[in-house]
């Protein structure tokens, strides 16, 4: 499976060599952002089992900080780092307190953070944020594409490394049974906080890439609960708690959304909302589970 991911990465690296189609490159950037959002949510919500409904808070914070710095003349790569750090700081503020209690406190805290930031940012910065005119005239899609690809590769790489590591095992043990994990010597709070830092930091990175990619948007837009929803939905479509699930989910979602958004502009979100509820109820393992069941069936048949 890891080879498939590497192959996918190589394929995406090569795409711009063969085509200069803006459509494909734009779709690529959106896909990379989707992969990063889903996989970063998955580290916390999937591996560690700490459901958050406020992932958009960190995506938005990263976008806000990076955009502000970049707009004031800081280089984009330098501007992304403070965005990541701000995300980690905010997440530790809430997670550090909430994780001592039960998981639902954390879900509420992050949801509250995302909504409140969205409203406050909307009040303070009501206008559209547009990149400086010099940057606009020199706007090139290719660096955005490769930065997005680097982001996606990093996020998937981190998740893959984590899944094979001792720390990742600890996280999964916490997800399965917190008390048993603690009894087996897993430092529960430390593991949760580490997952939180990784997850929100990567979300902040994704926000930074979003800020670099989008020419103009309302500053409160990346804080919209829709981003949290997308992250969770993609993870669930593919398979929560696996490395390749969120990648698969992001591919599926991005392409299907592209297809539906043109044809069923208004109700395509309705379809995704319903699909999501059905998956949570009927197929909590996502596409990955379908695949494993299918393989088992084939093996039994032969």
């Amino acid at each position, binding site marked *: 499976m890891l080879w498939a991911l590497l192959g996918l990465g190589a394929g995406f690296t090569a795409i711009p060599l063969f085509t200069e189609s803006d459509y494909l490159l734009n779709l690529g950037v959106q896909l990379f952002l989707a992969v990063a959002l889903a996989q970063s949510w998955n580290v916390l919500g999937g591996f560690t089992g700490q459901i958050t409904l406020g992932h958009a808070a960190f995506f938005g914070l990263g976008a806000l900080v990076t955009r502000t710095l970049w707009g004031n003349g800081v280089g984009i790569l330098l501007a992304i780092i403070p965005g990541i750090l701000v995300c980690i700081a905010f997440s530790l503020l809430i997670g550090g307190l909430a994780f001592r*209690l039960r998981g639902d406190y954390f879900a509420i805290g992050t949801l*509250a953070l995302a909504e409140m930031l969205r409203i406050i940012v909307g009040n303070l910065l009501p206008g559209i944020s547009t990149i400086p005119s010099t940057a606009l005239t020199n706007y090139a899609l290719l660096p955005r594409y490769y930065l997005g690809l680097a982001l996606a590769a990093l996020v998937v790489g981190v998740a893959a490394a984590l899944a094979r590591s001792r720390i990742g095992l600890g996280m999964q043990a916490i997800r399965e049974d917190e008390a048993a994990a603690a009894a087996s010597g897993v430092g529960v709070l430390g593991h949760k906080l580490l997952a939180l830092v990784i997850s929100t930091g990567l979300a902040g990175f994704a926000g930074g890439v979003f800020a670099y990619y989008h020419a103009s948007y309302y500053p409160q837009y990346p804080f919209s609960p*829709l981003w949290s929803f997308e992250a969770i939905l993609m993870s669930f479509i593919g398979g929560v708690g696996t490395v390749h699930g969120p990648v698969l989910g992001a591919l599926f979602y991005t392409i299907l959304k592209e297809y539906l958004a043109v044809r069923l502009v208004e109700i395509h979100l309705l379809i995704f909302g319903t699909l999501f*509820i059905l998956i*949570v109820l009927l197929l909590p393992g996502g596409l990955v589970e379908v695949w494993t069941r299918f393989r088992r069936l084939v093996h039994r048949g032969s």
Partner: protein
Amino acid sequence: MILAQQLILGLLVGGLYGLAAAGLSLTFGVLRVLNVAHGDLLMLGGYVTFWLFSLWHVDPFLSLAAVAPSLFFLGLILYCVLFRFVVRAREEVRIKNSLLIGFGLTLVFQILAIQFFTADERSVTTAYGGEAIKIAGLAIPLVRLASVVLAFLVLAALQIFLNRARWGRAIRATAEDWEAASLMGIPVGRAYLWAFALGTALAGVAGGLVSVSYSISPTIGLEWTLKALIVTVLAGLGSLFGSFAGGLLLGFAEAGSGLLLGGAYREAVGLGLFLIILITRPQGLFGSR
């Protein structure tokens, strides 16, 4: 003077926070599911009131008599179609799944409302909407005052139901310990159904009152869910009047901080309260069991 006026307005909106929270904490307390779509049920209730008023000129306070049963019915459907399956799991999984499903429902309701009702902001404007009671130079808007009083009365009626009625007691017993309740011969599933539908009806009534005193739009759901969640964290579970008081407190604090920090940061107070509770009462008002 401005301060006192603002604080009064804060208390008045707080009463509705309390009503919204009471419904949420009823469902959470009994079923142990955290319905994030609670605010969207509130939004739907608001639209029922709005349409009854603008199509047939039904007085908004009178229309609550239609809002409550229709939302109660919606609650029955939602429970039978979705949440019935959620409550089968053990508690942690229940909360997790209900969070996720509620989040999906939020989106579904929101899109449906935009489709059918358009994204416009709506409010019910009655002939008596502008009237206010003036005491010592302070103006108390009549409609908002009536809303809070009504919210209180609804909660009082529900409390009497929970204390006296057969099914009310069954619900309380289930909230206390569902296994014991089940052993005593209480049909726990039926108690869940009742509690969920009642919580939904409460959200509907709150929505109706919001549409008279303030305004509604398809996207207000999450905001109201959050207010209700924060009030529930603040006030704890198990007491409807506790929720009401918590709502008043949140409204009061919001108004106060709005004056101190400026309107733009008004929303931050909820998060601040949440964090303060985590620091000062970490045993968890919310998770008290």
